[in-house]
C-alpha cells in the first residue's frame, strides 16, 4: 500500500465533511443535543482550519479531548452498555478522528467508519424511507471513496456515475447473498430491550379511562392476512389480557389456582377453522393477539387457562405468527378455583350494583335471561357511549356510572357488566384486546390500530362454556361494525368512520391504504425474512438447510454463477474498435492474411513488414509506404486528422 501522504485540498475536505454529515445526520434524533452540536462544531472547526491552513492539535491535546468526551458519554448514558451509548461513542470518535485528519490513511479510516455508521442507522429504523436514505448515502460515499482513493491524479474521474454503476451491477449478487446467507435463529449476545414504557398498548391492568387513552393513537398494533375470506367485523375480537380480579375500581389479571387433581376438559373447537398470519408490532410483552378462539400449538406458544396465547419471550421486534382460530367453540367445565375467582366481588364496594345483580338473579329464569336483561338495560336506558366520560371519583365507581352518570367507554360497560354478572352468580371476567380492524383492499389484509383497542366481557354458562358478551355493542352497535373516527370525534362525542366518503376522502384513504400495503409487504417479505422463512424458502428449493454441504454447494453455485455472468457483462461487452487507424491497419492485415501472411499477435508493424520483405520483396515494396505511414501516424507526434484520412484511403486502395 502506498504510504504517500496526501493532504486534502479544500474542495475534497468540504466533500468529505458534507458526506460524513449526511451519513450521520439521522442519528441526531437519538443523540443528546450537546453531543450533536459538539460533533457539528468539530466538523466546522476542521473545515475552518483547512481553509486557514492552521495546524492541528498535538497528540497530547487530542488525548485529553478524547478522555473528556469518553467521560461525558459515560456520564450521559451511565455506562457504555447498550446500543445508544455505543452509537454515541462511535459518532464522537468519528468526529474526533477529524482532529487528526491529514493523511490519505485517515481519509480512508473515516470513509470506512462512515460505512459502519450507515449500518447502525438501521438499528433504529428499517422503514422504506430510511432504506432509501441509506441507499443515497451509500452511493455518495462510494463516489467519494472512488474520488479520494487516488489523490495524485489530475484526471476528473466520473465518480458518481461509476459508483451507481457499481451498485447496479452488484444488486443481483446482493439479493442472492441476502436470500442465501444463513440466518441465526436467535441473538449471539443478549440484546437489551429498549425503553419498555415508551410503547402504547394494552396492559395487564385496566383502569377506568385506560382504553380511551389508547383510542387516541393511530399507531398500528398488528396486521392480519387471512388465508380464506376475511371474517365479519362482529367476529373480529382479538383476544389480549384477561382480567379476572377487581378492587372495585380497577381490574387485574391474576393466576388461577385450579386446585389439586383438576383435569381441564379439552376445548371443543366447532365449525370451520380460520387460518391467518398476524404481523405483530413490538410491544415488549409476551402476549399474542389471536382471534377468538385460538387453537394453540403447544410447542411454540404457551396457552394459559384464560385462553390467552403467550410467546416464549417478550416481542421486541416485529414478528410474524401463523395462527388458527375457530369462531365456534365450547370450553367445558370450570375448576373450583375458577368458580371462586370469577364470582369474586370487591368486598363492600359498589353495593347498589351488587343489589341489582342479586335482584336480577331472583327475577331471571336462566343465566342467559340474566345476561339479556342487563344488555336490554344498557340498550334501552339512557346510557351514552363517549370518549370523555365524567371522572368517577367516589368509592363506588361502578355504582356511580351505572346509576348516575350513565356515560362511559367500553371499559365502563364491560366492568359494570361483569360486576353485575358476578353479583348475579354467573362467573364472568373482562377480556381486553382489539376489536375490528380496517380492511386494506390493496393488500387484502386487515390493519388493526391502537384505536381499535377494546374491552368486553366473558360469562360462563353451563351449556356453552365461556361466552363472549360485548355490552358496548348493546349501547353503540356501530362500534362493532366500524372503527372510531378519532380525528372527527370531538367533546367526547364518538363519531364512527362514515360509510359514505366524499371523493377526496376516498382518494386520501386509497392512498393511505396503498402506502400501508407497501409497508406491510416490506415488513413481511424484506424485514420479516428470518431463519424460519429462510428455512421454508430452502425447503421449496428442495435444499436441506441443516446440511451444510448442500448449503455450501448452493451458495457456491449461485454466487459463482452470478459472478461469472457479471464478469461476462463487464469484460466481454463488445468494444467496437473506434480507432479508425487501428481499424485500417487490421483491414490491411486481413488482406495480407489472404495472401498467406498471417500477422502474429506479438508482431509489431515493423517486424511484420520485415518478415514479408524477406519472403516476398516485391510485395514488400508495395507495402513499405503504408507500414511506414502507419508507424508515424500511430507513434509519431504530430499527425492530423487529414493524415489519418489519407492513410485510410491508401489502405482501401491496396489490391493484390
Amino acid at each position, binding site marked *: *500500500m502506498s504510504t504517500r501522504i496526501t493532504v486534502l485540498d479544500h474542495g475534497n475536505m468540504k466533500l468529505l465533511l458534507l458526506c460524513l454529515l449526511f451519513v450521520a445526520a439521522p442519528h441526531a434524533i437519538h443523540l443528546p443535543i450537546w453531543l450533536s452540536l459538539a460533533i457539528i462544531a468539530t466538523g466546522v472547526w476542521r473545515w475552518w482550519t483547512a481553509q486557514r491552513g492552521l495546524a492541528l492539535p498535538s497528540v497530547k491535546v487530542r488525548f485529553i479531548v478524547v478522555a473528556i468526551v469518553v467521560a461525558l458519554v459515560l456520564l450521559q448514558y451511565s455506562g457504555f452498555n447498550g446500543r445508544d451509548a455505543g452509537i454515541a461513542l462511535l459518532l464522537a470518535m468519528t468526529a474526533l478522528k477529524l482532529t487528526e485528519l491529514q493523511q490519505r490513511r485517515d481519509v*480512508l479510516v473515516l470513509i*470506512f467508519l462512515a*460505512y*459502519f455508521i*450507515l*449500518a*447502525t442507522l*438501521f*438499528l433504529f429504523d*428499517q422503514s422504506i424511507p*430510511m*432504506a432509501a436514505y*441509506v441507499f443515497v448515502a*451509500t452511493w455518495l460515499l*462510494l463516489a467519494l*471513496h*472512488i474520488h479520494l*482513493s*487516488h489523490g*495524485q*491524479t*489530475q*484526471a476528473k*474521474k466520473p465518480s458518481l456515475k*461509476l459508483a451507481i454503476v*457499481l*451498485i447496479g*451491477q*452488484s*444488486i443481483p*449478487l*446482493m439479493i442472492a*447473498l*441476502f436470500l442465501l*446467507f444463513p*440466518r*441465526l435463529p436467535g*441473538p*449471539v*449476545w443478549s440484546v437489551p430491550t429498549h425503553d419498555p414504557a415508551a410503547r402504547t398498548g394494552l396492559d395487564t391492568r385496566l383502569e377506568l379511562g385506560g382504553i380511551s387513552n389508547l383510542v387516541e393513537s393511530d399507531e398500528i398494533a398488528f396486521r392480519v392476512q387471512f388465508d380464506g375470506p376475511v371474517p365479519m367485523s362482529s367476529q373480529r375480537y382479538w383476544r389480549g389480557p384477561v382480567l379476572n380480579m377487581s378492587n372495585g375500581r380497577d381490574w387485574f389479571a391474576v393466576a388461577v389456582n385450579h386446585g389439586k387433581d383438576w383435569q381441564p376438559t379439552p376445548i371443543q373447537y366447532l365449525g370451520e377453522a380460520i387460518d391467518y398470519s398476524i404481523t405483530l408490532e413490538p410491544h415488549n410483552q409476551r402476549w399474542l393477539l389471536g382471534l377468538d378462539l385460538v387453537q394453540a400449538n403447544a410447542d411454540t406458544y404457551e396457552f394459559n387457562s384464560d385462553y390467552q396465547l403467550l410467546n416464549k419471550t417478550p416481542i421486541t*421486534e416485529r414478528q410474524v405468527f401463523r395462527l388458527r382460530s375457530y369462531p365456534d367453540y365450547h370450553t367445558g367445565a370450570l375448576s373450583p378455583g375458577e368458580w371462586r375467582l370469577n364470582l369474586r366481588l370487591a368486598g363492600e364496594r359498589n353495593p347498589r350494583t351488587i343489589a341489582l345483580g342479586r335482584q336480577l338473579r331472583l327475577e331471571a329464569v336462566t343465566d342467559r335471561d340474566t345476561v339479556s336483561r342487563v344488555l336490554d338495560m344498557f340498550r334501552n336506558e339512557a346510557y351514552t357511549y363517549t370518549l370523555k366520560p365524567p371522572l368517577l371519583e367516589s368509592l363506588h365507581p361502578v355504582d356511580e356510572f351505572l346509576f348516575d352518570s350513565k356515560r362511559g367507554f367500553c371499559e365502563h360497560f364491560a366492568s359494570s357488566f361483569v360486576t353485575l354478572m358476578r353479583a348475579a352468580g354467573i362467573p364472568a371476567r373482562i377480556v381486553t384486546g382489539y376489536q375490528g380492524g380496517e380492511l386494506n383492499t390493496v393488500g387484502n389484509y386487515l390493519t388493526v390500530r391502537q384505536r381499535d383497542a377494546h374491552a368486553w366481557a366473558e360469562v360462563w354458562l353451563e351449556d356453552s362454556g365461556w361466552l363472549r358478551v360485548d355490552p358496548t355493542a348493546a349501547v353503540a352497535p356501530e362500534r362493532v361494525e366500524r372503527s372510531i373516527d378519532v380525528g372527527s370525534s370531538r367533546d367526547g362525542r364518538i363519531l364512527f368512520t362514515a360509510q359514505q366518503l366524499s371523493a377526496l376522502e376516498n382518494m386520501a384513504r386509497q392512498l393511505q391504504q396503498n402506502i400501508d400495503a407497501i409497508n406491510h409487504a416490506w415488513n413481511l417479505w*424484506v*424485514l420479516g*425474512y*428470518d431463519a424460519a422463512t429462510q428455512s421454508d424458502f430452502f425447503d421449496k428449493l428442495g435444499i436441506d438447510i441443516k446440511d451444510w454441504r448442500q448449503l455450501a454447494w448452493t451458495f457456491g453455485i449461485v454466487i459463482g454463477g452470478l459472478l461469472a455472468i*457479471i*464478469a461476462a457483462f*463487464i*469484460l466481454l461487452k463488445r*468494444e467496437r*474498435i*473506434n480507432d479508425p487507424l*487501428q481499424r485500417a491497419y487490421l483491414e490491411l492485415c486481413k488482406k495480407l492474411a489472404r495472401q498467406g501472411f498471417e500477422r502474429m*499477435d*506479438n508482431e*509489431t508493424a*515493423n*517486424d511484420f513488414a520485415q518478415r514479408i520483405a524477406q519472403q516476398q520483396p516485391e510485395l514488400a515494396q508495395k507495402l513499405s509506404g503504408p507500414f511506414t505511414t502507419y508507424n508515424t501516424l500511430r*507513434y509519431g507526434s504530430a499527425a492530423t486528422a487529414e493524415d489519418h484520412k489519407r492513410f485510410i484511403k491508401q489502405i482501401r486502395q491496396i489490391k493484390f
Partner: protein
Amino acid sequence: MIGALQQQLAKLPPWLRPRGLRYPRLASGEHTRLAGKRIFILPSKQGLFFIGVLIVILIGASNYANNMAFALAFTLGSVMLVSIFHTYRNLAGLELRVSHIDDCFAGEQGVFTLQLSNPSRRARYDIELTSLATQGDRVDLGPQDHARATLLKPGPRRGRLPLGRLTVATRYPLGLCRAWAYVEVSAEALVYPRPADSHSRPGHSQSVGEGIETNEPGNDDFHGFRPYQAGDSMRHINWKALARERGLISKQFHRHQNPELWLDWDDTRGDLEARLSQLCRWLLDADGRQQRYGLRLPGVEVTIGEGPAQRRRCLRQLALFGTGGNA
C-alpha cells in the same frame, strides 16, 4: 509476503512459473499488450480492512436480526466483488512501448520513457508503473489516448542498465483490489564511465596525431554556409539568417590548426575504471571543442570522426569495454 512469494516464483524457469509470471519481453521500439491471462489481482491492504468492516457489520446484523444491515453489508461486499472486474479491465489490453531511453554516466540515473496506449473507448485511471530500484510513475489515459511514463533508474556502475522487470499496476476504482502485470523490459540504457576530474589530465598525453591541441578560439577558418544538420553546434547557427526567417543555417569552419586527436588507452594510467574515466573526460572535452577525434582501446578502434554520432559511438565503447558485451 505476496511480494516475497512473487520474487521466489519469478526465479523459476519460465515454463514452471504461474502464467502471470511468464511475462513478455519488451525490447526497445517494440510494443506489447497486457493480455488478460498475465494479470494478477488480489485484495489490497485497504481491501482487507474493508472486508473486516463488513464482517463486523454482518455480526451485528446477525445478532440484531437486522435485515437492512444485512442488505447494506451484502451490497458493499458485492460492490467489492464487482470492482475486481473493473480493476482488471482497467489494466487488460493496455499497450506498452519503450519509446526512448536516455543513457547516463555512472552514478547518475538512466531515464526510460515508456509510451502507454489505451486502445479501448474507456478511459483508464491510475496506472502505476514501477520497477525494482526505480522511481515509478503514474498515468491516466483517456479513451484511445497515449501517455508517457518516465522511470528513473540509478546506474551506479559502468555497463548495460536494463530496466528489468516492470510492474504495471492499478487499484482503480476503489483501491480495494490491486491488479498488476509484469513486463520484462530488455531495452537497456548504457552507463558510461564517470568522467574523471579535468585536472587529472596529463599534459603530455596527446602526443599522437599531427599537432598539439590548442585551446584557443579563432583557430577555425570560416569556410561558408550550409543548411543546418542534426548535430551541428548551436554556436555555429547563423542566428541572423534565422531572424530574417531564412531557416536554420550553420556556419562551416575548416580546422587546419585544430589537429585530429586520438584518445588512446596507452596514454592513461591506473586501473581499468580509472583509465576509462580518463578517456571519458578527454572525449567529452574534445567533443566540447568540436574537435575531430578517435578512440583506441585494446582490441577496439573507433576511427576519427566528430559530432554526436561519434560521441555516442565512443561512449558506447567505453561503457561496454571489458564487460564481455558485444559493442
